């Protein structure tokens, strides 16, 4: 299925409309930024206004929030989690650690550019981003979804070899199941 504007079908438009208003976030905090998720979801900022909700398991979730630095050990779990999620699925990179390493740029154990290992749809800048920017990131994601541009999962599927190569470079002992796509 291509998301070319001309070939966009009415079904896609309806699908994307539905998807963008019900984003289930996998409750999996990786770095310190996860502490900004509770205020985003609770009464003050009330993320549920935008259709954001927590999901308990990867198979029920749509959005994987990478909330900060990823140790190589965590990366392995994150990759596995991501591959278990069902389409449509989106990744949000949260905080400067996911963008360029942030304050962990010289660490022996954390990756510095998330999009080499997982397809990132939206990056949210900041160390750590406040709930306002988190929400604006989600609104950006909703925009991309309704335009049919949030196709990270497809990118991942098509360029799996490139991603795998990068992943295996930092995860030395690769013992993971191969999911069929």
């Amino acid at each position: 299925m291509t998301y070319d504007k001309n070939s966009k079908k009415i079904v896609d438009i309806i699908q994307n409309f539905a998807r963008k208003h019900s984003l289930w976030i996998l409750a999996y905090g990786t770095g310190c930024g996860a502490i900004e998720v509770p205020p985003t979801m609770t009464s003050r900022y009330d993320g549920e206004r935008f259709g954001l909700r927590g999901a308990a398991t990867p198979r029920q979730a749509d959005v994987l929030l990478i909330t900060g630095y990823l140790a190589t050990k965590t990366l392995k779990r994150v990759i596995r989690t991501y591959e278990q999620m069902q389409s449509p699925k989106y990744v949000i990179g949260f905080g400067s650690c996911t963008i360029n390493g942030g304050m962990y740029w010289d660490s022996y154990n954390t990756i510095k550019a998330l999009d080499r290992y997982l397809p990132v749809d939206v990056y949210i800048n900041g160390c750590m981003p406040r709930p306002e920017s988190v929400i604006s990131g989600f609104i950006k994601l909703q925009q991309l979804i309704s335009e049919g541009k949030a196709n990270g999962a497809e990118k991942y599927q098509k360029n799996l070899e490139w991603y795998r190569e990068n992943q295996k470079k930092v995860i030395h002992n690769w013992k993971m199941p191969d999911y069929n796509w």
Partner: protein
Amino acid sequence: MHIQDCTENTCVDQIQKIFHTAEVEIQRKKRVKVKLRLDLVPLFLSYARDYLNFKHLAHISCVDWIEENEFELIFMLWSYEASLMIMVKTRVNREKPEFITLSHLWPQAETYEREIHEMYGINFKGNERLGEFILEDWEGVPPMRRDFDTIKYSKENFYQRPGREDAQDVRETISKHSGEEVPDFAKEFSIRRIEE
């Protein structure tokens, strides 16, 4: 013989009476520092636990004295009765870093030893759970040793997105953009670690 109201001074006297080679010093209020030979440490710790009532092992930590070719192990003991902490310091040879486990005295020692084993490579004989702890699939020099080059390692292994270099010294970057003059004394301090 229990010393119920052990103060810093009585504690120092007591230790010196029994361990003649120990260098004991009151570091500050409520802190006593004891330097000991390696082979006396297990003895001293069980003495401190059973007779001086330092019942709680708060922490074990390690320092790499690479210039002296030694590791320093530090044991922190706490006494609830006297609200007193003693720090027991000892040196281990860096070439063959070995010590015995303390898990028979304090079960929590096992966890600290596992961490020190992973981060510094010190072997605690008798501890059966040494081995992979927090790091996963780590090969090579233990990462907290000072001869491990963290920056080099992270440069070789993790992709660094370009664009950070110019922000190493924020002041310089801003002055480049805005034409502001950087005073001479400030130029010296510009850090250029990425290019090193």
